[in-house]
């Protein structure tokens, strides 16, 4: 699989988790791609933690407004019926449980539901931005990540080794190989990539792995 195929499989699958009426915050990078795969007609409100609800698609070239950017600082648009607010209200929304689903990337995620996503000591210290609040505050936390690092090491661990973003808050992990929930110190595989066996997935997973009784194949996006 190419990196682009992995990203599309993950984003497409996560889009199926969103329900009519949900308020959703998508992290920058891969999670942003989820918006491209929304089933038509689904009423989803995207929240942008820099201060609005109703995040829309990218502006047409030349239509960028420097006063309207997403949490990555990139020009975006606002949908009709959206609303702007200050950072205090934005994080009241996030921490107060008013975001139904947040989707974030990971450096590591583990079988206790811990997430590490914001620093590698001695190497990369970008800061946590809004991630710690999002993971603690959102009703459902979905981690979107490639199953392994670029050099093939597992990212779904028994226990995170990097500094945590939050402890025990992750509800679901979606990789290009499968869909996992967290339960009693294990990751539970609910869906798998149709071309992969459980044993091949297990070999790339450090976390204790259980297989749900109704294991299904993941639905892949058209053309992948």
């Amino acid at each position, binding site marked *: 699989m190419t990196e682009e195929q992995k990203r599309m499989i993950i984003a497409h699958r996560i889009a199926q988790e969103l329900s009519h009426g949900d308020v959703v915050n998508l992290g920058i990078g891969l999670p942003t791609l989820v918006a491209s795969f929304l089933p038509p007609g689904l009423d989803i409100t995207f929240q942008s933690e820099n201060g609005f609800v109703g995040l829309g698609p990218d502006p047409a070239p030349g239509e960028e407004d420097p006063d309207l950017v997403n949490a990555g600082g990139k020009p975006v648009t606002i949908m009709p019926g959206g609303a702007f607010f200050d950072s205090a209200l934005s994080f009241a929304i996030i921490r107060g449980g008013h975001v139904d689903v947040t989707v974030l990337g990971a450096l590591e995620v583990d079988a206790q539901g811990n997430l590490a996503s914001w620093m590698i000591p001695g190497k990369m210290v970008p800061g946590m931005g809004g991630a710690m609040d999002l993971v603690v505050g959102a009703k459902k936390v979905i981690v979107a990540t490639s199953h392994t690092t670029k050099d093939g090491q597992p990212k779904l661990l028994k226990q995170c080794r990097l*500094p945590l973003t939050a402890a025990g808050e992750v509800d679901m992990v979606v990789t290009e190989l499968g869909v996992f929930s967290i339960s009693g110190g294990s990751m539970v595989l609910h869906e798998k990539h149709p071309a992969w066996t459980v044993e091949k997935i297990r070999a790339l997973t450090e976390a204790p792995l259980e297989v749900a009784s109704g294991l299904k194949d993941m639905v892949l996006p058209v053309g992948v």
Partner: protein
Amino acid sequence: MPAILSISEAVAQVKGGSTVMIGGFMTCGTPTGLVAELARRGVHGLTVIANDTGVQGNGIGMLISAGAVTQLIASHIGTNPETGQRMIDGRLQVELVPQGTLVERIRCGGAGLGGFLTPTGVGTVVAEGKQAIVVDGRTYLLETPLRADVALIKAWKADRKGNLLYRRSARNFNPVMAMAADLVIAEVEEIVEVGELDPDQVMTPGIFVDILVRSVSRHD
């Protein structure tokens, strides 16, 4: 009524060694005119409180490049590699604070509260050295207020009373910082007469604002 000053007159009030809050999120809603002038003046030893340090050479990045900042309290520095480099070199001391905690600490400072209990950061390095308090069976961290000597903020429109309107996502940290500093300087794109703003629509009441300056250009 706030004083209406030139950018250089206003920035002359910011002394070396002071604590300065600066509004904005990734340069959107940053008072760029004030920040550029502050960087130009060669002020040193600032403690800056801001969401981020923009990008290299732009927004708060100008102050970082000028070596004006010795302490930084922010939620994210990843978009400005120079900030990270200066931190590693030991020339800049950085306290990283979750974004929701950062804005709430500033709000506390402005609202006369002694602190607040947040679930954010429990079980992480953010909890180190902080008091954990259990309420209704859930563990929270006690986070304490932030205040500054000066707040540099950016608004869209002001009236001569200092009432402010912000535009789009350029609002972000600006209204909260307007409450939490001894001296509040607002860079605005337009100053209108008293009575031209609908009092229902004012986002920051003028009582918070000490000095108004006009932006050199829109979105500069």
